[in-house]
């Protein structure tokens, strides 16, 4: 199995601080390699937990969702298809969906009006601005976000970081449903082009 050999080689030959990437490790995890899963945990757990915490907010619930997501990564690694995208994207897409599922089910049980009233639409970007500094890739995200129009940026960030559905985003921003959908798409396309993402 040349793929496995390559991945094992990269485990042995790369310096500790660089180490194997999620793309190296996930195919090994798919074959039931627990040691690879342990290393994958160390590579991705910060991003996974950070994203959950950002969306869910509550610490105890974030920890619950985090454990569910990491276990799902282990359980469904066999379904990862490298042809269709990178391992980090696959893991963070799964993470975001679980985080959003959690806030939507919690939201269904609480009063929507209360939540909406507490919300300041300008908040997400401010908070991102606070957190997004230091690392090169984080600076790039921040720089690229600044190229979006205000509506594009808020539509994307309210949905992504707050876990709001597009009708909720439309209501918060006071714009029609059709508009919010196109703003989300246009905003992401602009980000994609700025970041040079190829999928």
């Amino acid at each position, binding site marked *: 199995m040349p793929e496995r050999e390559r991945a094992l080689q990269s485990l042995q030959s790369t310096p500790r601080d660089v180490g194997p990437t999620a793309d190296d490790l996930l195919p090994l995890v798919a074959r039931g390699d627990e040691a690879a899963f342990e290393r994958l945990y160390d590579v991705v757990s910060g991003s996974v937990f950070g994203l959950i915490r950002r969306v869910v907010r509550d610490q105890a619930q974030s920890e619950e969702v985090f454990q569910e997501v990491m276990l799902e990564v282990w359980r469904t690694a066999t379904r990862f298809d490298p042809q269709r995208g990178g391992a980090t994207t696959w893991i963070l897409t799964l993470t975001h969906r679980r985080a959003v599922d959690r806030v939507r089910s919690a939201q269904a049980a609480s009063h929507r009006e209360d939540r909406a009233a507490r919300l300041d639409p300008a908040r997400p970007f401010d908070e991102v601005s606070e957190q*997004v500094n230091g690392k090169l890739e984080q600076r790039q995200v921040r720089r690229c976000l600044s190229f979006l129009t205000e509506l594009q940026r808020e539509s994307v960030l309210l949905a992504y970081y707050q876990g709001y559905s597009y009708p909720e985003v439309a209501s918060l921003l006071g714009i029609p449903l059709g508009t919010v959908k196109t703003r989300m798409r246009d905003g*992401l396309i602009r980000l994609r082009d700025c970041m040079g993402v190829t999928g």
Partner: protein
Amino acid sequence: MRTTSADLHTLTGAYAVNALSDFERTAFEAHLTRCESCAVEVAELAATASRLGAAVEFAPPPQLRARVLAAAAETRQLPPHTARVPNPRRVRWAGGLLAAACLVAAVFVTVQYTQTGQERQLAQLSSEYSRFSDFLSTPDAKLVNGTAPNGATGTAVVSASRDEALFLAKGLPDPGADRVYQLWLIGADNDPQPAGLLDSRSAPVVVNGLSGVQKVALTVEPRGGSPKPTSDAVMAMPLA
């Protein structure tokens, strides 16, 4: 009540940031299996969105590491997907009834799959599923949403070229003993025509003959349905 209609193709961004309802997500994912350019765009936009995720890194409490690893050691992994059943392109639609049966099966299997992981059922019905996506990928397929006062939601996928619509509801309250939900088509004359009963509160219904129809409405009727509505609509959605 809130309504909207939208071309499925414009949903790539909302899908990538998980801003769709469950039904829209299911419908859009089926659409993706047939729309190559949408699938490419979704992959790119999902990768873009995940950069936003990676930008808010925060270390989990250290004690979770051992817990996750121990849980993984005791959890069986899903079997990988095997080669797909060939796409039955030569199978033609055999009229509305067969289509309805297939759509119902496909939607149910999708729901069952996410809820209970009934993989085998999904594999067995993958050919029916492809017919469902065939419907969703018609160029003029549109999504229409409605919300009832109690928060129940309705979604219809409407194709004018096929002259058909697929209606799904979620969160409908129990209609009561000996009562059913009935669907109606309403034209310019405001004379509702019966369009089928919801076998269960979440069962999809396929509606044919949309010519002149302006909206779809849902009422609660005595078991067996009524020739004309006997109660006010719990939900109504414009199709235009």
